[in-house]
Structure formats: C-alpha cells, structure tokens
C-alpha cells in the first residue's frame, strides 16, 4: 500500500498511480479531486429524496471514474440513507448473468450490509426468509442442514448460495428456474429486508449496483434491461444500476431509459472546449489529480500539462499514462518526470491504437473531428470507437464527441487522404 500522500520518489509514484482500483476509504480522502462537472446533480436529486424508491441508471466511459464517483455518492449519502455499494463483478458470473441473478445479489448485499453494520434483523424476519428460501430452492443440492442455527442458515442462503450460484452452472440453472415463477416473492423478501433496515436505522436504503456496465456481451446486457427492467425497478428501495455506455447510446435502449426515474451519464473531464480551446477548469482538476500522488519536484510543469492533455480527461488513462511516464523517467535515471517521458508513454499506447483502427474507423473519427459540432451518429463503427476509447464523449449542456488525444496524431498523418474523402462525400 503506497503512502497516502504525494509520493516522494518515482518508485513510490509508480505504485501510487494504480489504474486498477477505484478510490475508497483513506485513499479517497487523500487522492480524490472533485470534477468540474461531476455528480452534483445526481447527488442533489438523490438528497432531495423525491421518492424513497427511485431507480437511476448510471453510465460513462470506461475509465472515466464511475466507480470512484459511485463510492463517493455512497459515502456522501450515507448520513441520510443506508447506502449499500457493491459490484456484481465480485459476486456474479459476468459471462452469464440475468436480472434474476442481479436481484438475488441485491438481497444478499442488503443482508450482508445489515450484518456487517450490526443492524440486527428480527428473528421472525430471518425465520421467514430462511423458510422461503429453503422451500423455494429446496432443489439446491447440499443445502444447509435442518438442525443448523438460524443465523447459520441465513448466512447460507444469502452469502454462500451466491458463491455457488456463480461457480456451479447446474445450481445456477436450478435457482433461475425456481425464481422465475416466484420472482414477486423474491422482490417481496428484498423489500422486507430493506424495510427492516430502514426501520432500525431510520434511513431509507440506497443500493448502488456497480459493474453491470462491464458486461461485455451486449446481448446479455440488453436482455437484462429489456426482460428485467420492470423487475429491477420493483424493489422498494432506492437503487442505482450501471449500464454499458455502448448499450446506453443505442436508439432501442431509449425505450428502457424512460422507464427508469432518471439517468446520469458521467462526462469525461474536458481538456479542451467545444471550440478546441483549452478548458482551464478541466485541466486544473487533472493537474491536481497528478499532484495529489506526486510531489511537485518529481514532475516538470510541462509534463503535468501534457499528461492532462493526452489523457483526454479519462481519469484512468491519466493514471495509466502517469504510471508509465514514471517508469520511463526511472530508466532514464531522471530526477523527475519530464514531458518526453509522457510523450513516450503515449507513444506506446498510440502504437496499440494504430494496430486497432481500420480505415473505416479513421474515416468516422475524421468526420466527427472535422464536424464543428462534433456530433455523434449512431452506427456500429461509432460504437466500436466508443468501445475502444478512441472516441470520447464530453458534455457542456449537450453531449459532443472528439478523438482521443493520443489517437489524434494518427489522424493527422492521414489528413490528406481523409480530407479528400470527406470532401468527396460532402
């Protein structure tokens, strides 16, 4: 664990820039920098508490800082709400999941949070829950023995069952089949837990279900929201569900979107405005993010600026570039990260993009880049560009799109041919 202050050596900095984990706990306190345009609107809406059962959708670019923002929301709203944050990546099989699995995991997450935070659920409730699960899922092989203590039984149904559901395909099938016909019962049980928690703590439950945006098979994600949208909206608590950005922007998802109370798309931090001029607020935030992890003497000012610029405002890209730049500076035996280190780190990434992008991709990127309004047109090609992060979404009022700064030189190299193509098409 690197120290929770700006690193004093490039080796520590290398470890402090970790693109793997969202910020939480002490690391959040030490490293979190508020975004110029963040989740304030969502926070406000959630605090306003129009309804105790509102359901939101949450999306954003891969690496834009969604998980960190959701963890922050969970923390900030915890005074008013009993917030439960979890990511389905840790509890479900991401290759094969449906809305029933998500609901099952939601029930488990509530139970686990109550147990952890010593909100003792009444014995009668536990008996009822255990009774329902053991009747409904009596087919599950090797269920807990009848003679076990009540709490042990409850732990089995809420905690151990999920692990088996994740790893045993046969068990998963059994559970789904049984739950299919008793879904309203399952939702009712979730509601009983949520109500009990709210009653004991005086705070309504807010569940934040992260990780659904990482379902790779868009077919699975689509089915989950199409077939399961109504069920996901049903639990009597507030909830935020994440959605893959690529699915979110399809026309068909529009129908699903309107059935939820609201949605929020976390924009990338702007490094440039719509007009291509530098965005000072955005850049200041990105610079601060670097300085929180790295003592000022360890990085040249122009290197920080280049990092901010080349990240395109995607926070995880910034962290990954900074980490790689530290590595370049170290082998150069430099005292600090220089702009050349940043350029070289970006160059490595650019090489991957160069291999990844096709002529069609370049044409589409050029079209959007050359369009003064930087408009988005929905097409499979564009979805691929969003997916591989070569096309980034920004917002000031309206959403607009631009090419990842690391990719831009590749586009420039092809400017002549692409320019012609563009004219020929016009």
């Amino acid at each position, binding site marked *: 664990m690197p120290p929770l202050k700006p690193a004093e050596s490039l080796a520590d900095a290398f*470890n402090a820039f970790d693109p793997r984990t969202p910020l939480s706990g002490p690391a959040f306190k030490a490293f979190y920098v508020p975004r110029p345009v963040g989740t304030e609107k969502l926070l406000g809406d959630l605090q306003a508490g129009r309804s105790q059962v509102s359901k939101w959708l949450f999306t954003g670019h891969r690496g834009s800082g969604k998980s960190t923002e959701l963890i922050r929301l969970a923390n900030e709203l915890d005074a008013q709400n009993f917030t439960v944050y979890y990511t389905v990546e840790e509890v479900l099989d991401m290759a094969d999941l449906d809305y029933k699995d998500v609901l099952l995991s939601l029930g488990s997450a509530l139970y686990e949070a109550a147990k952890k935070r010593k909100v003792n659920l009444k014995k009668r409730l536990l008996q009822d829950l255990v009774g329902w699960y053991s009747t409904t899922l009596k087919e599950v092989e090797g269920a807990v023995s009848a003679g076990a203590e009540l709490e042990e039984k409850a732990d089995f149904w809420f905690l151990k069952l999920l692990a088996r559901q994740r790893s045993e395909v046969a068990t998963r099938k059994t559970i789904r089949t049984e739950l299919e016909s008793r879904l309203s019962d399952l939702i009712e049980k979730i509601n009983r837990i949520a109500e009990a928690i709210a009653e004991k703590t005086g705070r309504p439950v807010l569940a934040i279900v992260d990780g659904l945006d990482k379902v790779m098979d868009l077919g699975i994600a689509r089915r989950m929201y199409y077939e399961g949208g109504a069920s996901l909206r049903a639990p009597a608590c507030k909830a935020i569900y994440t959605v893959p950005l690529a699915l979110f922007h399809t026309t068909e998802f529009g129908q699903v979107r309107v059935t939820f109370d609201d949605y929020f798309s976390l924009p990338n931090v702007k490094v440039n405005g719509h007009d291509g001029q530098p965005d000072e607020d955005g850049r200041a935030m990105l610079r601060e993010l670097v300085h929180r992890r790295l003592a000022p003497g360890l990085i040249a000012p122009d290197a920080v600026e280049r990092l901010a610029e080349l990240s395109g405002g995607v926070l995880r890209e910034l962290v990954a570039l900074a980490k790689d730049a530290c590595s370049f500076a170290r082998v150069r035996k430099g005292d600090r990260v220089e702009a050349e280190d940043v350029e*070289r780190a970006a160059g490595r990434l650019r090489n991957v993009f160069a291999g*990844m992008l096709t002529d069609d991709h370049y044409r589409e990127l050029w079209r959007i880049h050359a369009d003064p309004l930087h408009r988005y047109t929905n097409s499979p090609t564009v979805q691929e560009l969003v997916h591989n*992060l070569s096309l980034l979404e920004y917002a000031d009022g309206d959403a607009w799109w631009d090419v990842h700064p690391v990719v831009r030189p590749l586009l420039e190299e092809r400017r002549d041919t692409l320019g012609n193509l563009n004219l020929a098409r016009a």
Partner: protein
Amino acid sequence: MTRLATSTSLAPEVTVDLARLTDALRIAEGGFVGFALFDTFPTRDAMMHEIEMRLAGEVEIRRVELTPDEPYLYERLELDQPSAINHQPSARHIAYFAYGFEGISDEARAQAFGALQIQREAIGRLEVPVVLWMVEGNLIDLARRAPDFFVWRAGLYDFRSPDRKRAEEFGRAMRQMLDIYSPSLVPPDELRKRIKLYEELLARRQAEPDAQPRGIAGLHHDLGLLHYQLHGWDTALAHFQQARETYERLGDAARLAMTLNNIGNIFSDKGEWDTALAHFQQAHETYERLGDVAGLAGTLNNIGEVSRHKGEWDAALAHYRQARETLDRLGDASGVAMTLNNIGNIFNNKGEWDAALAYYQQARETFERLGDAAGLAMTLNNIGSVFNNKGEWDAALAYYQQARETFERLGDAGGLARTLWNIGLIYEAQGRLTDAQPLLERAVELERRFGHPDAEKDAAYLASLRQRQ
C-alpha cells in the same frame, strides 16, 4: 576487437522497454498487469530470459504457458496460490510471465480473452504482477474482448523489431546480442551470479530421466559465453567443446557455426592464430551455406582480426571491409563501429596515423551515440595509441585515462590491462620509472590471471625494467 556472435544492435526503444519492465517488476507492490508485445518467438524467449536473469535473486519469475487444454489465465495462476506465497514475509516476490496465446485456436483464444474481462477482479485479488506476452493482433483482440482488463495495464512494453520485414533476422540477432551479454550491459558480479544459476540449471537438466541434449548444449554454450566474458578462457573452451559435440551429433548447423566462431575467438585471444583461423573458416563455410549474412559478417571480421595479428594487412582489410558492408546493410551500427575501429587498427599498425585517426573518430562517434561504453573505451585506447606512436604523449595520456576509467568501471580486465600497459610505457619513455612500474605490474598481473598470450613476454620486459632501475 572480435565478435562473439554477430548481431544487429537492439533498437534503442527496445532497450528502454527491457529496462522498464525489469524495473517495474522490481519495484511493483502488489498487483500489476503489463503487456509485452513481440513479433518473433526468439525475441520473446530472449527477452523473458534476460529479464529473469536480471531479476535473479530478487524476483522469482514463474512462467505460465497457456495451452489449448488450459487457456485460462486465472485458473492457471490460482493453482499456484501466489497470494499465499507473497504474503509470507520472508518469501521472495514472485511474478508471472503468461504466454502461449498464439498456440491456441482462435475460438478458444477468444474465450480465454473473454474470461480475462470476467475474471479480472479475481486476478486482481491475487495481488501479483502478471505480464502477458503477445503478438500485436492478439493484444488488439484482447483490448476488444476484455477492455476492462486492458485498461488495468500498468505498462505497455514493445519488443517488436523496428522494421517488420527484418523481423525474423532481428529476432535472431537480438537473441545473439543478449547471449553475448555485452560487458557494457552486465557487471562481473552479475555474470558470476548467472554462471551459478546456469550451473544449477545444467545439473538439474542433466539429472532428468529424458534429458534433452539440445537444451543441455544450449546451457553449455551460454556458460561458455559467460566464462569467456570473465576471461575464464579454459573453462569457456571446455563448455563450448561440449556444446559443439552435441550440435555436431544433432546436425544443428546454425548453432554449430555459432559455437565454432566462439571457440575461434578464444584461440584468437590466446594468440593461437592458426587454430583460431581453422575454426573461423569452418564457421564461415557453414554460415555461407545457411545464407546467414549476419553470422557471416561477424566471422569475416574475426578472420580479419587473425590476419591483422599475422601482419597480413591487405587480407585483413579486405575481410573487415566485407564485414562492414554487410553490417551496414543490416543496419547494425555497433557492428559497423567495430569494423571501423579494426580498420583503424590496420592503419595504426602501418603507421598511417591520419587515416587511423579518421576511422577511430567515426567509430568513437557511433559508440558514443549508442551508449556502448565498452566499445567506446576500446576506441579511446586506440586513439591514445596513435598519439603515443606520434610521440604526442600528453594527448595520448588524456585518451588513455578516459579509457582506463571506463574499463575499471566495467570491470573489463582485458581492456584495463592493455590501457595500463600503454600508460606505463609512456611513463617509462618519459623517464618516470617509479610511476610506470606499478601500472605495468598490475597489467601483467591481470594478463596472467586470464592467460593473455603476451603475459610472459610482458613479465620479462617488466623484469628488465626493474633491473634498469
């Protein structure tokens, strides 16, 4: 200057990434996901091997080869229970090299990449550094199928050849380059550590019931190179001979030629010119038959060295020029600099000082640009010798001092002995016998230690000097 085995020089960026990945694995705390790009298997193997050697004793690299039967990274890592190992306070850190994606069918590979996306949290919880070695096409596929795993990357390391068309040649050359372990890259202590490691490996390999002769021969060859660099000529020779026998038996012409060339080098260093020449010529014929131009160029250079020592200057010059032409065509800058230095030696021997200086200066510039300290020191010594021969002692001494410092830093006993001897001779000519004597003594001591052909001659000279005092 002779050449162990020929090589095009490593692209500067490849050298940087080699250093970066080694450094990252050394300093990384907890988990870490790196992607290493390669375009030939020899490159990949050479790079993995080099990093393992550089980290020997600090980080234990475990190789995980993914196969059609077991293509899933997480399952393979979990079997090893790395978190249990790394959590033992005294245990050495471990890291994984995962490779073999190319040998898996497209469909299975797609699934294996999909699994990375799905199991990334689980892989993350193992808290160990993992480097995935793959070709570009696969990396791009991975980025598409497992984007959330791809963005976890802590570093991208590019070990591809700068020129795709020359990829294969480059890969082979790189392997050779790393096998040479140029003294400018590796300090003697590290060489000794590697010898120990290889010896252990050799013993283990030999004890295996189905011992693989090719692998064992390879270790003998590597040990030969390591001992050679430490001037342990006789031990090196014994290892090379072992390798040679096996390669002959297996009919492995390419490796045989390489070994013959390296045996030739030892005889050349010992001053046994005819034996050296016989070996070089055998290697030369084989390289020619195989169409291995890079190997050929190195051997031509080495034959040139023998000719020069025998005073056959025109023959030497012809060989050097042929070698230089080929190396130039291959884009092997350090090889070209080596031949320029050697051509300079001829003019120096012939007393054509200006021509000698011109060649040395060209060589010097290249060595400086490449950061090749050993080559640079050798050339500085030679420039010093031109000034020495011209009687410009102050200039000569200035160059010798620079060369001496570098040889000392590199622990290059051969180069150091030569430069100390040269400085000693100037002091002697200046009448500073008390200054000269310790330098000459040390030079002789070094020469004796590794059996330099001139050792006894130099010792006799030193004795006569003592008498004169």
